């Protein structure tokens, strides 16, 4: 291992600009002559819209235009789309209502965009937005997914009965029914997965720009996948032909899923720029992020586990109602279905699984992928019910899990996934050792002696990452293939540019991708530049989400590097008058095997561009190769997280005393960056378990619409984390990587809740475990006696 190659932790190349204030985020960009947009948003969760009177607004200083949904329709601009088709049990396709970027006739959630005011300054646009008079006729709203299915529930889209988007199933129904009939014991649990609001620290932003000379539209935007945004904006929404639309995602301040989607505001900016003939800039305020970024989770689930007399799991049955919000966001339908139920086997050998999921419209913000996307919801169900089963059997939860682990690979689950490799016992053992599991009873006694309660909770999770392969996702309804592309350009001086379809918004690709190149070509890290986030520079790519950039994005780079090496060897062979098969390439040097003849990588790079050094009739000049990589399978990172809490029954405050995470991510490029990803994921997972909750009032007002009401995890809420690794090399991609971005968010919530329910000796506790609710639970007996 070199100091900068695979497995080393060089400090990040991107950091210098961020620590000196030289980052380049969308709001930092200004275009000559730009105007500013402010959106008029619905104050009602459900209303029909009569007249929109913009006269007063248009008369205000600096106002350039006020545009509505009618203007968009007049220009032939289509609605936003959902790119993943899901079919109901009866074979019928999901029912999706129209989703205009600016409302047409009706608003369906609080914050729905009704009109846009464009002015010379943002302050002027905002002032004028207040003056747009919209004639609303409020209607009854429904925010709870279960209630929305009711016979008298108000309809979000008039044409969609019972607000039911789909009624979907997965698994082996008959075997599952038989397993429950034959079961020695059945354990069941009702589980709520709380609605979360992603809150990347950089609010969404967009600048639309239009060049009337060339007809080219440019959209600068906070996107995790600029190419997909371009494709959707051109092919489906009809903003501009694909070759006349450039999408640039510069530095992006966190995404966590929320910046995958193609939203109304970005769409409007690029369209409005053409319409008003000037650049249009919009930067969301945090309140707008709360209202209009796609939310996450929001599931109600009933789960039941069948056990045989020996304490082996023989079946799992799950019925989930998933709140999808008022419109189907870009990937909304895939999250509670194919990204959720396919992971319900967890780490366990379960012969029969049957899941039913109803996707439901409500008058709330659209719900889509948020860090983990379906997999945290699945893991929460599995790890909560497994814990409950162990407790009902009076058994140590670690031993119950151990007995039921999958032990041979590949393993085909009843819910599509074929796990390629893993060693679940290794991570369980290591985590138990790191947290000193055996010492827990002593620590519990010490806490009790001090008037506190202490609990410990395990979570042995699995996730499917490296979202791909195309054939598999295509057969499940994805509207796009999920491969990745890369292009490696070697300059004549031997420095290297890598163009990747992945996008970095905190993951450190500029460093880890360069490490791979440095290791393979023997060039110093500082001579490698990673280019991403611009559809004019990178030909196509699928972007970054689902922990896919390592396993898929880097594999594409590795494939392109293979081609570079092969061609460079041919050129080196000519230069040294040897057969290509005799050339060895190692540490940046081409050597004729068994001789002392050698050339450095920069020497060969230069020669590649000096055409007379080799017969260009046989070898084309230049050294640039590209590759598209489509993996064989998903990857399956897995591990064990253990949380130990202490609860003060007088205050209800839950303190996380220890948090141990042992993960198997396969081969790791940069351990420092991987640890950072795990820390961040755990913090979001603990946030979900203890603090965060997106709450709507019954009439559809968002009650948690700011950082004053929605509790983000702060430094004082969290402990330092103790991390460990176990490794099984992933056989499904050339680098052996699995992905690490979501593990913490997936594994942490059940670990925390298992610890809290253990501490309080109660069966269940709904997230988030806020002090007030924990205090009530801790004092339930005393409260009941009052």
């Amino acid at each position: 291992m070199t100091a900068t190659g695979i497995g080393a932790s060089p400090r990040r190349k991107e950091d210098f600009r961020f620590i000196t204030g030289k980052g380049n985020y969308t709001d930092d960009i200004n275009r000559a002559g730009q105007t500013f947009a402010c959106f008029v948003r619905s104050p009602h969760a459900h209303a029909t819209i009569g007249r929109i009177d913009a006269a007063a607004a248009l008369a205000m200083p600096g106002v350039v235009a006020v545009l509505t949904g009618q203007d968009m329709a007049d220009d032939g601009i289509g609605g936003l789309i959902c790119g993943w088709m899901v079919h109901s049990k009866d074979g019928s396709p999901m029912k999706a209502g129209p989703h205009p970027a600016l409302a047409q006739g009706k608003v369906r959630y609080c914050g729905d965009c009704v009109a846009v005011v464009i002015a010379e300054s943002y302050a002027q646009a905002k002032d004028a937005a207040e003056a747009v008079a919209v004639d609303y006729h409020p209607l009854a709203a429904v925010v709870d997914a279960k209630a929305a299915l009711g016979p008298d529930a108000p309809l979000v889209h008039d044409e969609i009965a019972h607000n039911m988007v789909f009624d979907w199933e997965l698994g082996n129904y008959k075997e599952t029914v038989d397993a429950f009939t034959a079961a020695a014991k059945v354990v069941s649990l009702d589980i709520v997965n709380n609605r979360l609001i992603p809150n990347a620290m950089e609010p969404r932003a967009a600048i639309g720009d239009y060049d009337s000379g060339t007809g080219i539209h440019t959209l600068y935007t906070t996107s995790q996948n600029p190419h997909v945004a371009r494709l959707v904006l051109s092919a489906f929404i009809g903003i501009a032909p694909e070759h006349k639309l450039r999408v640039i995602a510069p530095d992006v301040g966190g995404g966590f899923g929320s910046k995958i989607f193609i939203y109304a505001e970005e769409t409007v900016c690029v369209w409005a720029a053409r319409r008003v003939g000037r650049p249009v800039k919009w930067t969301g305020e945090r309140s707008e992020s709360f209202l209009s970024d796609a939310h996450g989770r929001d599931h109600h689930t009933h789960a039941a586990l069948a056990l045989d007399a020996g304490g082996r799991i023989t079946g799992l049955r799950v019925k989930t109602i998933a709140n999808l919000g008022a419109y189907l966001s870009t990937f909304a339908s895939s999250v509670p279905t194919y990204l959720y139920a396919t992971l319900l086997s967890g780490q366990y050998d379960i012969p029969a699984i049957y899941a039913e999921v109803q996707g439901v419209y409500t008058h709330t913000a659209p719900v889509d992928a948020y860090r983990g996307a379906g997999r945290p919801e699945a893991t929460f169900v599995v790890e909560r019910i497994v814990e409950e089963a162990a407790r009902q059997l009076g058994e140590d939860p670690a031993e119950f899990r151990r007995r039921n682990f999958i032990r041979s690979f590949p393993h085909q689950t009843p819910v599509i996934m074929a796990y390629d490799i893993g060693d679940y016992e290794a991570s369980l053992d290591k985590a138990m050792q790191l947290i000193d599991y055996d010492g827990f009873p002593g620590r519990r006694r010490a806490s009790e002696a001090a008037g506190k309660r202490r609990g410990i909770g395990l979570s042995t999770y699995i996730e499917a990452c490296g979202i791909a392969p195309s054939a598999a996702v295509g057969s499940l309804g994805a509207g796009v293939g999920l491969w990745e592309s890369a292009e490696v350009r070697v300059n004549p001086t031997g420095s290297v540019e890598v163009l990747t379809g992945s996008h970095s918004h905190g993951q450190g690709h500029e460093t880890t991708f360069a490490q791979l190149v440095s290791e393979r070509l023997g060039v110093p890290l500082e001579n490698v530049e990673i280019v991403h986030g611009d559809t004019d520079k990178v030909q196509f790519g699928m972007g970054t989400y689902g922990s896919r950039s390592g396993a898929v994005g880097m594999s594409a780079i590795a494939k392109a590097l293979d081609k570079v090496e092969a061609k460079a060897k041919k050129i080196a062979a000519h230069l040294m008058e040897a057969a290509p098969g005799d050339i060895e390439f190692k540490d940046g040097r081409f050597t004729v095997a068994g001789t002392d003849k050698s050339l450095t990588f920069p020497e060969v790079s230069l020669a590649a561009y000096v055409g007379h050094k080799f017969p260009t009739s046989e070898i084309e000049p230049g050294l640039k190769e590209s590759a598209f990589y489509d993996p064989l399978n998903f990857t399956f990172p897995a591990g064990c997280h253990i949380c130990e809490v202490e609860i003060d029954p007088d205050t209800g405050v839950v303190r996380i005393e220890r948090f141990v995470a042992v993960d198997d991510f396969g081969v790791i490029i940069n351990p420092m960056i991987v640890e950072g990803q795990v820390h961040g994921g755990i913090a979001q997972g603990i946030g979900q378990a203890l603090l965060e909750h997106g709450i709507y009032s019954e009439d559809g007002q968002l009650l948690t619409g700011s950082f004053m009401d929605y509790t983000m995890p702060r430094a004082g809420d969290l402990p330092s984390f103790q991390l460990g690794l176990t490794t099984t090399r992933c056989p499904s991609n050339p680098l052996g990587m699995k992905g690490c971005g979501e593990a913490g968010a997936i594994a942490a919530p059940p670990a925390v809740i298992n610890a809290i329910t253990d501490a309080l000796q109660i069966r269940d506790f709904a997230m988030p475990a806020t002090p007030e609710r924990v205090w009530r639970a801790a004092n339930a007996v005393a409260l009941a006696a009052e």
Partner: protein
Amino acid sequence: MTAVSMTVNGKSVSADVEPRTLLVEYLRENQRLTGTHVGCDTSQCGACVVHVDGVAVKSCTVLAVQAEGASVVTIEGLAKDGKLHPVQEAFREHHGLQCGFCTPGMIMTAVDMIRRHPEGLDEATIRAELEGNICRCTGYHNIVRAIEAASAAMGAKEAAA
């Protein structure tokens, strides 16, 4: 419009601004110093922290006109003579940033925190002092490490001086 003059990163600047202009807007838009970020609209996140007369303030919560005559230092003014401030160094060394959006505010807050705690900083104090800064990426683990290290390094330097 109101005239306002101040020193920003050692340079005297003046401009006519609308009285309602926030200091952060003035810095980002008039001075084109975009290192200072806006992460919220309720003075909660700390992405906007700068130093006004040597003290950390949330520049989204101060009007530009309130900084009349003051000396303002932003993240762009922290490195001196091309040399990074020890807190900047520590954030890079300890991987105290991911997307970088909260980072300028975190660093400016940390510099102020270390100044106010010449006795040194332990983990509990750092975590309590970070109450006003939100990071969604790092889980704070490495931010705490970075501030501990910077505090130790700066204390050591002072002791040596």
